[in-house]
Structures are given as structure tokens and as C-alpha cells.
């Protein structure tokens, strides 16, 4: 504990000790800062459907994942998520910023300085953890990418910004720009939007799926591979610590869940994306797909569950494929339960089962499975009450478990 006077004196010294311009830069607001509220709102709305679940970044000093607010749709607002410009020359039939949209809002664009100042002000006031910057392609994706990079550079260098930066790679932008962006951002991503080239042609005639999107993902992959081999095994990569991700629109091009799943598996195995995000299609006024029915949110939810089974529970892709019906769609039911009905033909004994076996029982997650493994070293698990105390959803798990030689058999288990 030191005196207040000393703290004030030290802070004053910091100012003369090249403490970085961040401290001196004043905060901007709507009134005094000359920020156009309509622009802020329109460019913010342009990213409403983009998902970024966490701001955790495994840097040398890891950045925490913090949600600074939640909207009434229950989703986290942790980043200043915005478009650089909503001007776009692509013809995506689901997008309100596309050329073919008859209900386009006014075209707006930030300057790098303006965007950097807004981000700095929100970050310093503790409203956000960082910046999520996407954009319409404008007339030239490389020119817009340059502006986005300039914004990120200004934040890092002029404002001494140490927060999280997620930059969207615009389809078709140059490899050199991707390399430049990778040096400034925690994460890069490019949206797949569709599950295959033919599905992409259904919803956007101006993007080449293989060249404009998949090839850009490979460029990012090359950067990540180069970085992790130079930093040694087991260490966080020195560039793009939060890796690359991607996002798909569910249901816009009429693709099945199984087609989405096959694409995502390919993304995890071949491209090395950290995560895939799903966004249920929702028709936008004035777009060619305006009259197409919105996809139910549960479809998105079931795809996330399937994704979770693959990434966290380490289910094999062949196992998961049993959750799809003949047409390749998931029903509105837990895919883990459907897989358990297919594969768990013998009851699992929690006292002898291996970790993968426990993880295949509905109601048992990775945490509770490890808890079972730890507790049975000291005493046997002999009742449902024991399991309940360990946080297991006993009602769902019991039909698949053999406890003390007994097994519950319920009608639920034999439901088609």
C-alpha cells in the first residue's frame, strides 16, 4: 500500500516516460466525437449474424474470454463487431448489402482513424474486449482489406491496443494481404457460407468457392503451419494465436445437415479450423431469398451439438453419421441420444467403463466422466444418488447404465 500522492506522482511520470499514446488519446462519443449514429448502427447491424463465441486468445500472456453484455436474444457482446463498409459488389441472394437487394440501406464507410478511435474508446471504458472487423467487398476487396489492415495497425501502434482483434478475410483478397493481417490479428476467418461449390452457386454467382474461399483458407493454414513449426511443439503459435475459424449459413442453399457435416469435418481435418459456426438462414427484406422460409433455430442448435460430439467428445465421424435420417437431416432431438440407441447395445458399468465408453452415455459429459473415473479409484459407485451427486443427468443416463448389476429398462430407450 502506497500513498495516493505517490500513485498520482507515478502516473504523472508514466506520461513523460513514453507510456504509449493510448493514455493521452481522448475518448470519443456520439455527441462530442462527431460519430454518426446512423452509420454506427447500420454497420453494426451488418454483422448481427456473424458469430464469435469467445475472445479467449492463447497468447504468451493469454487473453481472457469475457462477455461484457448480452443482448435480449441471449447472445454475448464481447467485441465491437462491425463492417468497415456496407458497400458491396457481390450478388449474394441472402444479403441485404448485396447488389441485387432492393431494400439496401445507405452506403456507409469508416475511415481507419475513426474506427480505431471508436474501438479504443469502447475498450478503455470496458465495454468490449476487442474488435471484430468484417466488411462488404466495396469495388475492390484488396483496397478494402488494406483499409481494414490499416485500422488494425493503427490500433496496435498508435493506440497501443492490446485487446483482441478478429479480422474477416474478404473472398478473393491477395495472399500478401492475408499475411499482413495475420501479423496484427488474434484470429482470421473467412466465411464458407455454403457446404459446397454447387451450393455456393445457388446463393451467390460472383464468388468462386474453390478459389475465392477455400484457397484463402489454405493461405491462412500455411501461415499457421509455418508459425507453429517455428515456435516449437506444444507452444502457442506466435502469429494468429486464436487460429482461423469459419461460418456457414444453414438452409439458404437447400443443403442437408449431412452435407454441412461432411464439409465441416473436412474443414477440421484438412484446413485445421479451430471452430465452425452455424447461422440459421433468416430471410432479409428485398433480397432474392426474401420469400424463402426461415430455418428453425433448433436446426442450428442440433448442428452445434453434433459439432461438439466431434470436437469435444471425440466421436468418430462414422458414429455421428448415424444421427442423420435417410434424407441427411438431423431431427429435433439430441443427436447423442440417437447415436447411443444405435451403438450402446450393452449397458455400461460406471465402475469399469473406459473414458470413451462413459462419454457415449447420454447425460454424461467430459467433466462428469472424469469425475467418475477419479471417484471409483477410492470407492465403487453403487447408486443413482452417487451419480446424481457427481452432476450426471441420471434420468437420461440410467437406461444405458448398469449400476450394482441392475439396469433400468424404459420405453424411452426403444423409441424409434
Amino acid at each position: 500500500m502506497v500513498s495516493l500522492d505517490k500513485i498520482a506522482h507515478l502516473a504523472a511520470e508514466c506520461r513523460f516516460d513514453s507510456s504509449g499514446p493510448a493514455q493521452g488519446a481522448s475518448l470519443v462519443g456520439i455527441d462530442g466525437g462527431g460519430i454518426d449514429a446512423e452509420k454506427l448502427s447500420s454497420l453494426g447491424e451488418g454483422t448481427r449474424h456473424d458469430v464469435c463465441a469467445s475472445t479467449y486468445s492463447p497468447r504468451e500472456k493469454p487473453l481472457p474470454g469475457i462477455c461484457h453484455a448480452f443482448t435480449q436474444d441471449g447472445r454475448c457482446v464481447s467485441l465491437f463487431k462491425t463492417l468497415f463498409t456496407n458497400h458491396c459488389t457481390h450478388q449474394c441472394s441472402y444479403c441485404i448489402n448485396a447488389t441485387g437487394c432492393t431494400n439496401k440501406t445507405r452506403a456507409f464507410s469508416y475511415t481507419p482513424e475513426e474506427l480505431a478511435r471508436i474501438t479504443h474508446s469502447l475498450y478503455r471504458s470496458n465495454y468490449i474486449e476487442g474488435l471484430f472487423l468484417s466488411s462488404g467487398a466495396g469495388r475492390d476487396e484488396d483496397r478494402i482489406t488494406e483499409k481494414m489492415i490499416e485500422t488494425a495497425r493503427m490500433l496496435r501502434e498508435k493506440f497501443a491496443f492490446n485487446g483482441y482483434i478478429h479480422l474477416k478475410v474478404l473472398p478473393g483478397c491477395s495472399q500478401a494481404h492475408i499475411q499482413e493481417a495475420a501479423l496484427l490479428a488474434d484470429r482470421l476467418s473467412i466465411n464458407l457460407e455454403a457446404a459446397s461449390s454447387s451450393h455456393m452457386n445457388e446463393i451467390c454467382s460472383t464468388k468462386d468457392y474453390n478459389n475465392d474461399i477455400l484457397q484463402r483458407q489454405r493461405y491462412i493454414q500455411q501461415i499457421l503451419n509455418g508459425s507453429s513449426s517455428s515456435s516449437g511443439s506444444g507452444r502457442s503459435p506466435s502469429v494468429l494465436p486464436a487460429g482461423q475459424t469459419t461460418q456457414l449459413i444453414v438452409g439458404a442453399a437447400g443443403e442437408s445437415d449431412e452435407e454441412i457435416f461432411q464439409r465441416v469435418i473436412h474443414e477440421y481435418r484438412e484446413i485445421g479450423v479451430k471452430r465452425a459456426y452455424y447461422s440459421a438462414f433468416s430471410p432479409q427484406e428485398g433480397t432474392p431469398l426474401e420469400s424463402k422460409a426461415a430455418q428453425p433455430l433448433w436446426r442450428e442448435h442440433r448442428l452445434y451439438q453434433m459439432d461438439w460430439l466431434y470436437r469435444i467428445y471425440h466421436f468418430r465421424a462414422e458414429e455421428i453419421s448415424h444421427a442423420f435420417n435417410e434424407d441427411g437431416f438431423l431431427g429435433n432431438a439430441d443427436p447423442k441420444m440417437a447415436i447411443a440407441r444405435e451403438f450402446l447395445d450393452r449397458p455400461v458399468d460406471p465402475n469399469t467403463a473406459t473414458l470413451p465408453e462413459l462419454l457415449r452415455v447420454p447425460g454424461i459429459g467430459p467433466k462428469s466422466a472424469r469425475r467418475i473415473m477419479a471417484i471409483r479409484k477410492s470407492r465403487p459407485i453403487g447408486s443413482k444418488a452417487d451419480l446424481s451427486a457427481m452432476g450426471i443427468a441420471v434420468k437420461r443416463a440410467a437406461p444405458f447404465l448398469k449400476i450394482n448389476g441392475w439396469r433400468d429398462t424404459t420405453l424411452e430407450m426403444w423409441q424409434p
Partner: protein
Amino acid sequence: MRVPEGFCRYLSMHEHCTERVLARAKVLRPEEVETSTDPETVRIKKMVYAVMGESHRMKAFVRLAPQGEAVLYGFMEPRHRIGVHICDSFARRNEGTIIVLGNGRESWIALSWEGRIWRNRGGGMAETLEKLRLMAALRCGQDGSCEEKAVACDFNDKNPCKDLSGVEDLWQVYYDSQYCPERKNLAAFKRNMPRRDQEAAGLRLVQNRRNATLDSFNIK
């Protein structure tokens, strides 16, 4: 192997933590904390989680406003004894800036610079801020003609003061733009933003203000 130091540190910040509970926690093994169903161990674990939860939400929800160039301050009235911990965290995030957190009764002050943290504790936040303002004004008088304005706030109030920097209005416009009406899920919203923690952080979140109608306020 005993529980990590961080576990006991969080436990000691709990409003109901006693020497006896702390001594009990110090002899626990990590796997015991993870798997034990003993009521006292479970209670200790819950106490730690409660402190960690409140700490996390204060780091998320407390908003900072500037007083001059060298000070950022924010309202905070937590249930647990986490004032110093949160203040340190904000100081590390804003190197070289004095962080003042507090309310009408007490305040925590921290400054982080070159890996070190200097701390102080004071009475009500208004008093601490006024002292800092006078010190800055004195320094301004010595080396130039700058002006340090006083912060006009009532820190005994849950919503202490209007943010004069305009950042709050900027945030509100952005926050409204992120809402997808077709995904409305009030249950998830309430679960993730407990009113108690919003109040403890002095949050003045006007939900979706731009689209609000009289019906939103249940006025018949």
C-alpha cells in the same frame, strides 16, 4: 499435493469466509475438491465458485469513465471482498493509468506500470477522486495551463453519474444494433446478466432502447 494458492485466495475473498474454513480448505487435495460429496467440501467449492463468478462479472460489467487523462474510475459495490482483485485487473489492462473503483463508502485505487502494481484504499469514491483531481490540478498549475474538471456524481446512488465522455451513448447505439429480434431469448439474457450483478457494477443498461415502445414498460 494441496489445492492451488489461487483456490484459497478466492475463498478468502468470500464474504462469509472464516479462519476455520480457510484452514480446512488448505488441507484439501485437488481431486477431493473435484469429486468429494462431503457437505463442507462442497460448500467450500461453492464459495470459491461464487467469488470467481462475481469477479468475472465485475470485470465484464463495470464501466470506466475518465477523470482527466490519468484516471479511469468506475462504480462497484460487490458482495464479496474482491475490490483489490478487480482493481488490479483493470490496472493491468490499462497500464500507466490510475484506476479507481468504489462506491459511496469505500474505494480501491491501483496503478500498474512495468510489471508492478501500486495500490491504495480510501473512503468514499467521490472523496478519492476529488483528492486526485486536486493533485492533478496542482501539477497542471506547475507545468502548464490545463484544467481538471471535478466529477459530479453521487456514488451512494446505484446509477452514480452520467457519462460525460459520450461513450455510453455510442455503446448503446452499437448494442441495439446487435439484437436479432427473430432470436429473442429473454431467459438466456436474464441468466447471463443477473440483475444483482448489474446493480453491483452500477450498470445502466437500457435494453434495446431504440426500439422501445410504451408497451415495453408495461404502461396500459
